[in-house]
C-alpha cells in the first residue's frame, strides 16, 4: 500500500471512531475519494445526503 492508501485507511478509521459522523457519509466519501473526482461540490453532496438520510432514519 502506498502513502496514499495508508492515509486513506487511517483517515476513514478515525472518521468511523467519531459517532457524530453518519456511516453513510463515510461510505460515500470512500467511494468519492476512490473515484478520483473529488471536488468541494461533490463532498458537500455526500455530506448533505448522508446527513439527511441519517436525520430521516
Amino acid at each position: 500500500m502506498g502513502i496514499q492508501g495508508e492515509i486513506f485507511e487511517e483517515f476513514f478509521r478515525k472518521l468511523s471512531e467519531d459517532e457524530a459522523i453518519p456511516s453513510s457519509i463515510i461510505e460515500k466519501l470512500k467511494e468519492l475519494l476512490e473515484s478520483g473526482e473529488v471536488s468541494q461540490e461533490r463532498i458537500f453532496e455526500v455530506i448533505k445526503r448522508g446527513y439527511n438520510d441519517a436525520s430521516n432514519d
Partner: protein
Amino acid sequence: MPVTIKAINIHAFRGIPDLELELDGKSVIIRGENGTGKSSIVNAIEFFFTGKVFHLEGVKGLSLQRHGPHVHYSPEDVRIEITFNPGNVSLTRTFTSAPAPPEEFKDYFQVTQKGTFILRRSQILAFIMSRPADRFRAIGSIIGIERLDEIELEMMRLRDNLRGEVESIESRIDTLFADLSRSLGETITKIEEILPALNKILREANLPEIEAFEDFDAVSEEILKAIKKDVNMEVIKTLKDVKSTLETLLKPDDVVGELENLNEKIEQLLVEGFDLSELSLLESKLLEVGKSILEKEKRDTCPLCEQRIDRERLLSKLHERLRILRSLSERASEIREISVQVKRKLEMLVDELQSILTKIDPFTELSEEKSELPRKVDFLRSFMREIETATELRNRIQVQKFNQQKEEINTLLSSILTKCKTRLEEMELTEEERKLLEIISLIEQVKIKVKDISKLSSELADYRKFYELAEKIYSTFSQVKKQKVQEIYHSIQGDIQRFYSLLHPNEPHRNIELIVALGKRASTELKIESFGQKEDPRALTSEGHLDSLGLCIFLAFVKKFNESCSLIVLDDVVTTVDARHRENICKLLIEEFGDKQLIITTHDGVWYEQLRAAQRAYGVEGNFKNLSIVDWSVDTGPIIRPYKPRWERIQEKIVSGDKIGAGNEGRQYLEWLLERICELTQAPVPFKSSGRYTVGDLYDPAKKRVKELIKDEQFKAHVFERFKNLDLMIIMGNLLSHNNILAENVSIDEVESFCNRVKELHEAFLCPECGRFINYYRDLKILRCSNSRCEKPIEVKTK
C-alpha cells in the same frame, strides 16, 4: 531485471536536430561547455517521460509548443524515441502521442512520468531556498501526495464556504430581528420575544392578544371587523403611496437653475470653439509625452522628424498649450459632472411618473391625467438625450422649453394629488380606524418576518451541522496527512543525515530535520543543527553546503520512493560545491546508487575527471559511458565523442589550431593540479564561501607550502624549477579563463608552451616508477607514492 535505457534518439528537439545516444543500459557522464546541448538532452528525456519540460512550464512568454522544437523544425517534426531493456522495447513521444509502455514497465513509468528522477540546480533550490509551502510541493511530487493535497484543498474550501454560508444566514436573521425591533419598539433577539412585544401593542389598543403565530390571520380579521366601512386596504395603501410620492415631487427643486448653469458653461466653451472629441484628448496626451521627452533627454532635434528645434521655445509653447488644454479639460469635466447630476434627477422623475401611472391605472376619475402623463415622460426622455448631446458641445440646452414642460407636469401632478386626497377623504376613516389599520399592517409585517426567520433558522441548523461535519472531515484528513508525511520525513532523515555526513565529514552540521508545519495546510520546514543551534540551513551554511544538502534530500527521497525506477538524471548540479566535497559526491553516488542508471551532465572538467577517477577507484568503469560534447552548432547539434584523457584532448586541440579550447583545457588542468597540490600539502588557502578557487587563488599558497614543507633539497629543486618555468606564464592561467577577450591575443604556440609546463609540474608530483600521484604522510614526515603495490615507490622527506 531492472528496466534500463538502451538508447535515446532525439529528433528536432531544442538544440538538437538529430542525435543518437547508445547507453547500453549503462550510466552515462556527459561533459560539455555551456550552450552545447547538455540540457537539451535532459529536456528531451524529461519530455519523453512527462510530456513537459520543467523550465518551459508556467513562464509567461514560454511554451513547449513554441520553444520545444528545434529552430529549423516545426512541432509535428519532434520525435523522441527511447529503447529500453529488457526486451529491446522502443517507445516514442511526439507532440501528439505519448509512449505506451508494456505492462512490465508500469512501475518504472509510474515514477518517470512524474519527472521526479531529474534534479537540476534550479530544482535544488526548491528543497532549500524556497518557501515552506513550495518545499512541501517539491517533496510532495516525489512522494506522490499531490492528489492528496488537492483533496485536502477541496475539503478546506468546502469547510470555509460552509462557514461563510452559516455567517450569511446568521446575518440575515439578525437583520430581520433588527427590523422587528424597530417595528415593535422593543429589542427583539429571539423568536419567543416577538409575541409578547406585539401583544403589548395590541393590549394598549384594547385589542385581543395573539396566543400563537398561527393565529395572526384570525386576529387580523377580528380587528378588521371593528372597522365599520368596507375598507379595501390595497386601495387605501395605493392612494397613500401616490399621495406621498406626489407631495415629494411637488416640492420646489432647482433643476431649472442647474440647467441654466450647465447651459452657461457649455455656451462659453462653444464660443471658444473647444472640441471635446477624442482627437483633442489625444493631442493633450501627445503634448505631455513630447514635453516629457524634451525635458528628460534635453535633445535639440524633434524625436519624430529629427529636424532641429529650438528646445526652450518649443518647451515654453508646449507648457502654454498644455495649460490651456488642462483648463479646458477641467471645465469639460465640470460640465460632465453637472450633466450627470441633472440627468440622474430627471431619470428619477421619469421612474416616479411611471410608477404613479401604474398605480393610478384602476382609478377612472384620473383618465385625463393617465393619457397626458406618458407624453410628459416621452418629453423628459428626449430632453435627457438633448442634455447628453449638449454635454458633448453639439448643441445648447433648451431650458425655456424644459421650464414650460416642467410647469405642465407639476399642474398634472397637482391634479392627481387633489383627486387622490378627495378619494381618500371619501373613505371617511376615523382616527381610530386608521390606527386599527396600522395595527393590521404591523401584524402582517410581523407575520412575514416570523415566517422568514423560521425558514432561515431551520436552514441555519442544517448548515451548522454541514459545517461541523465538513470541519471534522477536513481536520481529520489534514491531521492524518501531516502525521503520515512526518512519518515519511522521519523515515528518510537517517538517509539524509548519512548522505550529508558522507559529503561533509567532520563538519559541525547535524540533526537535519524536515518538519511538517503544524499550523499550515501544506508546508515543510527544514532545520539543521550547526554549532549547537537548530536553524534554517540558510542561516549558517555556505551556498555549496546548501546545494549538497538539496542533493542529499533529493537522493534520500529517490532512494525511498523511486525504488521501482533505476533512472536518476543530475543536470549540472554541483557547480557551487568545491573539489574535495565533489569527490565525496562521487563516492556517495557509486556507493549508494551504484545499482541505478545515472545520467550526469556537467560543464566542469574537474568534476568530470573526479567522476572518472571514482569509477576507476571502485572498479566500476564497465558500468559507465563517459562522453564529451566536442562541438555544437545549430545545424549539427551536439557532437558527442567518447571520453579522451585530458592531455590527449589538449594535444588534439593544439594540432587543430583551437587555441581557445586548448587554453581552457590547460587552465582547468592547472586549476585541478594546484587544488591537488594544496590538498596534498595541506597548504593554507584564503577561504572562499563559493568554494570555487582559481589559479590566482591557489598558485602562490601551493608554491609557498612546497617550499616550507620539503626537506629533500634535490626534490625541492626539481619541483621549483618547474614552478619557475610556470612563473613566467602564470598570467596565462587567468587569461585563458571563460569570456576573457584578451585570450584572443595569445598565440597557439604560447598556449602549447603553457600546457607543457603545467604537465611538467604535474609529472613532478607523480611516482617515477608507477605514475601514481604522491601522497603526504604527515606522521612519517614523508611524501610517498600512494600505490601500496608500487615496487620502487618514490619517497621524499618533509619537515
